[in-house]
């Protein structure tokens, strides 16, 4: 019996040490990407190409989801607010929910599952088929040539995707509240304009999306680069990207929110 406890404790210890070790390894990799970003920033074409693959191909899912989330917010907001006779504030509610929380968070979650997993799978497959080793043998650094452009493309795309998500979401809220239900159009927009503060709501939202963008893409490229070079290795890494970055987004969101919005108004 004590023996089994010892083995159990040892197992836990192993896991903890392993995760810390891996975290350290990932942080070192992250620094390495930053150090080796010179090439891709100088040859911006490398990044634009990846922006197409990560950003542009995520557009559809971002726009459609944004529209639906906005429409649901319009419905729910109206449903609650009209009880207090405040249905004209539905625009405010939709806009603030999207700018502060749902835009950054949901867009980042979608981005992680659409683009993040694709980045991991692509880099992992390049590793499994020895393309990265071949590049290294050609005296071309794969971190500079393959990883860094994808990283920056993700970091650049994320804020734009989240902004589009929020914009389409507000439009969805407008469709439901004003066009469908008949809330007064003038007060819908004017209350929204009055309530939304650029520095407090918009800028904080943008800061969130930037942080999420860095986190998701960093996790995605790391998992791809670190994948064991087999089919199972790559599929495992893809799953880990989605799981880890989703958790990272939600955790970071809590931390950022508690730093940014402390009941000031």
């Amino acid at each position, binding site marked *: 019996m004590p023996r089994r406890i010892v083995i159990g404790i040892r197992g836990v210890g192993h896991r903890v040490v392993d995760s810390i070790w891996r975290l350290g390894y990932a942080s070192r990799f992250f620094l390495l990407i930053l150090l080796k970003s010179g090439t891709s920033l100088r040859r911006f074409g490398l990044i634009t190409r990846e922006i197409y693959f990560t950003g542009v191909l995520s557009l559809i899912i971002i726009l459609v989801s944004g529209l639906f989330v906005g429409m649901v917010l319009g419905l729910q907001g109206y449903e609650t607010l009209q009880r207090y006779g405040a249905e004209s504030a539905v625009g405010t509610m939709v806009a603030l929910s999207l700018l502060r929380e749902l835009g950054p968070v949901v867009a980042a979650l979608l981005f992680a599952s659409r683009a993040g997993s694709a980045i991991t799978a*692509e880099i992992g*497959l*390049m590793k499994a*088929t*020895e*393309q990265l*080793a*071949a*590049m*290294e*043998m*050609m*005296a*071309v*650094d794969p971190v500079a*040539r393959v990883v860094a452009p994808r990283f920056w493309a993700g970091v650049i795309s994320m804020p734009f995707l989240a902004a589009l998500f929020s914009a389409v979401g507000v439009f969805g809220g407008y469709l439901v509240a004003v066009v469908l239900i008949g809330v007064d159009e003038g007060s819908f927009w004017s209350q929204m304009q009055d309530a939304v503060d650029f520095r407090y709501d918009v800028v904080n939202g943008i800061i969130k999306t930037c942080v999420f963008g860095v986190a998701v893409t960093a996790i995605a490229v790391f998992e791809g680069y670190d994948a064991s070079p087999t089919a199972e290795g790559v599929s495992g890494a893809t799953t880990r990207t989605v799981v880890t970055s989703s958790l990272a987004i939600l955790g970071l969101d809590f931390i950022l929110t508690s730093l940014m919005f402390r009941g000031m108004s």
Partner: protein
Amino acid sequence: MTPEVLIEIKNLNFSYGERSVLKGLDMTMSRGKVIAVMGGSGSGKTTLLRLIGGSVRPSSGYVKVAGKLVHELKRDELFRMRRKMSMLFQFGALFTDLTVFDNVAFQMREHTDLPESMIRDLVLMKLQAVGLRGAHNLMPAQLSGGMARRVALARSIALDPLLIMYDEPFTGLDPISLTVIGNLIRRLTDALGMTSIVVTHDVQESLKIVDYVYFIADGVIAAHGTPAEVRGSVAPFVHQFVHGEEDGPVSFHYPADSYASDLELENGFA
């Protein structure tokens, strides 16, 4: 002006963790030759190429390429050396997101400032040399195994290297593609004045095209010689390998406890 010997390997030892793979290898490879390195699967042939290319470090001993100790080179020196060497990976390792043309152009664009018009001419010349100029617009996924190997060959001669290492270039090819690749290796080596190291276990095909053969077994050089010497060799290992015999110095069986004890016959269970 250059000394005869391009690669000198002395008492080379290497292990993956506890697992010792190479145990004191000695080889010399002369410029302008095609050298075959043969040995069973898992005998450390790919590892040897990685040691020559500097992607892993020896536990002891050394590899010298053109007089320089590979494992003592700094990263930028190593990268400079690698511009003069190429490696053809087992399945080609073509960049799947680039066309055939862009694959061959890759190193020219990364390492030179040549204008695009000149790159175009050079790429088409390299592709012509492997007979695939007409395929320059295809994506790697559209190529057969033999064609992919030839594109990889064109890519590896893109910057006219001094040395090309081929990791099992014949594996998985039909007999025609196999002969084509073999002859290409020989012809390109002679035409471009390169040195080629061919890692293979395709004995018959490689004996036709190479100048010298090394056999690796159990981490050491078991035998070496010219193709004629190898064919006529009566050394049991070489004989077994060249004639593909099932049992000999290289056992059919992976080392194991005695068969009887594994089946628990000795303990009186049966």
